[in-house]
């Protein structure tokens, strides 16, 4: 009985190999990410997005007249597994790869894809050096990098508000301090003077000392990294102390509580926040598609995953082949309509126009500045 099982499974394996061999004329889209383990909720929506996109494209005749085949591999978000995953996808002949999900796993796997000349696109790896270091010309992403917000805020302050002296304040937390440090870096690079860089204690009774310090340093703008309770206190006290300094902050402040608590004092402030995607038709369509198929809400990185699958397959279509140089060139030059907007990728691999917008507080409302 045991021998019979082994025999059957051997034959099955052998047949499956030939099956892959015969079906060589497909476009192979590798999908890598955590599909098991505790981080699976971050990987599965992107995988399902790829399945939906491939199903739809195949129903419409595929890419370049060929059917698209999915090669799905689990990396559990672990760098040591991700290298195996990448090797497996390379040997299986993936033409392009959607993944990986976690920044650490992506970094570990990228070198292998680079050597094999395979374009990789992550829907979720936000670690800035992945694109900015320039080490991985084969890497693209459909999500904004961690420093994107700070970049938006600083560019806006310099280009639109023409600030000369900036105070950078943060709440000493990971999120706020990270934002503030990126902002300081970009300000330094742009040659704008950072007159103050300090942390404040969240929940302190008042911030009058730091407000006076901002006045003393004659800052044109205050860039604050942190959340809305401190932001409300800061803007109220700045108004109380008759400061004209412009207040600029991050997504942690783009909360209705900020408007409600700071009231009038919030008017004229600027915050960065995720772009309003609800007006993009494909976004709603993708969600509806998912709901029809699975009867649930899509989950994290679904829209980004959907966009990445579309962008990769569109690039192959536009390039006319799966050749590495042609595909990466198409990704950088051809616009594609996706759930995160009409996008193409910049020279480093970040999607242009994805992620954040600057919002101005006007009459107690956030108004997106185009």
């Amino acid at each position: 009985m045991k021998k019979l099982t082994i025999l059957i499974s051997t034959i099955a394996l052998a047949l499956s190999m030939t099956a892959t061999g015969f079906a060589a004329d497909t476009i192979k889209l590798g999908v890598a990410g955590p599909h098991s383990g505790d981080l699976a909720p971050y990987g599965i929506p992107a995988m399902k997005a790829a399945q939906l996109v491939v199903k739809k494209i195949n129903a419409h005749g595929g890419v370049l007249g060929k059917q698209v085949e999915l090669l799905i591999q689990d990396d559990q978000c672990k760098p040591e597994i991700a290298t195996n995953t990448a090797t497996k996808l390379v040997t299986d002949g993936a033409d392009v790869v959607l993944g990986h999900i976690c920044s650490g796993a992506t970094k570990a796997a990228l070198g292998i894809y680079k050597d094999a000349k395979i374009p990789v696109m992550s829907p979720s790896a936000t670690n800035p050096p992945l694109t900015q270091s320039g080490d991985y010309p084969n890497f693209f992403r459909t999500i904004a990098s961690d420093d994107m917000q700070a970049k938006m805020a600083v560019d806006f302050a310099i280009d639109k508000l023409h600030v000369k002296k900036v105070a950078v304040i943060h709440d000493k937390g990971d999120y706020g301090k990270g934002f503030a440090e990126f902002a300081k870096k970009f300000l330094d690079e742009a040659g704008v003077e950072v007159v103050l860089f300090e942390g404040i204690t969240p929940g302190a009774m008042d911030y009058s000392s730091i407000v006076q310090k901002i006045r003393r340093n004659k800052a044109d703008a205050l860039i604050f990294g942190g959340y809305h309770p401190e932001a409300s206190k800061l803007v109220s006290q700045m108004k109380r102390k008759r400061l004209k300094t412009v207040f600029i902050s991050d997504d942690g402040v783009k909360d209705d509580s900020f408007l409600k608590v700071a009231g009038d004092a919030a008017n004229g402030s600027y915050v960065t926040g995720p772009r309003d995607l609800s007006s993009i038709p494909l976004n709603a369509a993708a969600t509806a598609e998912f709901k029809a198929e699975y009867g649930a809400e899509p989950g994290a990185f679904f829209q980004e995953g959907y966009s990445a699958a579309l962008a990769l397959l569109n690039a192959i279509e536009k390039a006319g082949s799966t050749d590495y140089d042609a595909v990466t060139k198409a990704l950088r030059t051809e616009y594609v309509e996706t759930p995160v907007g009409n996008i193409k990728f910049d020279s480093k691999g970040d999607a242009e126009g994805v992620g954040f917008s600057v919002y101005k507080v006007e009459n107690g409302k956030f108004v997106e500045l185009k």
Partner: protein
Amino acid sequence: MEYFLELFFGGLTRGSIYALIALGYTMVYGIIQLINFAHGEIYMIGAFVALIVAGVCTIYGLSGVSILILAGVVAVIYACAYGYTLEKVAYRPLRNAPRLSPLISAIGMSIFLQNYVLLAQTPDFLPFPRLIPDFDFMEPVAHIIGSPELVILITTMVTMILLTLLIKKTRVGKAMRATQQDMNMARLVGVNVDRIISLTFVIGSALAAIGGVLVASYIGQVNFYIGFIAGVKAFTAAVLGGIGSIPGAVLGGFVLGWAESFAAGYISSDYEDVFTFGLLVLILILRPAGILGKARKQKV
């Protein structure tokens, strides 16, 4: 010089609030050697009651200052009721228990009250109306000391003077001092010690509620958690000045407020708490009983 004045008044304002709350800690400690950890929550409840009253008053179309006074009075009454009940429920049954028991009871009340407000009201930050108007005559110096700071300073000064008069000049004050010196002896000469202890809690709570209302209308927001931080700082002030000593609590509040303000202003706000607590350690090394505290011999 202007910068110095700005920081000076900022520290003075903050310090006077610390002092108001610290008085409650120190008075209770002086009489029953209990650190009432739920005191910060009374401050927070005062602010919440004022918010509710202010909301109702605004509907009836009253103006800024009259709302402030009305909301303040109602908040004080509520806070007094809370302080009174707190003592009856959580501390009186443990009067003769080992000293750790009421301390645990106090921490328990603090957690209970915080979560009570969290559930009964909201976990969010709520806007508090700016009840203190901007006076025109303050406009030229508004960047150094604004109208809210002025109102806070005047109110706390008046409150402290009234408290001093109460303790020094009235029969009740005399009974309080007697109870503080020797509870059994006071009882022997006919002081109703239980009532004096209740009264101490009520007065402390009233001061905390005044602080809560002033801070909330100065900062413009309230949350169930504000009492914890203010309570810790005020407790520090009380220890700094010498716990059990009333002038010590006031002095400790001001010293702490200035230390924070100048440390943040001249050095770095990153290290604001490092400097203030460093100062506390230093003072306790030099004067273990606090600036104005009297070292008492412990009976072993």
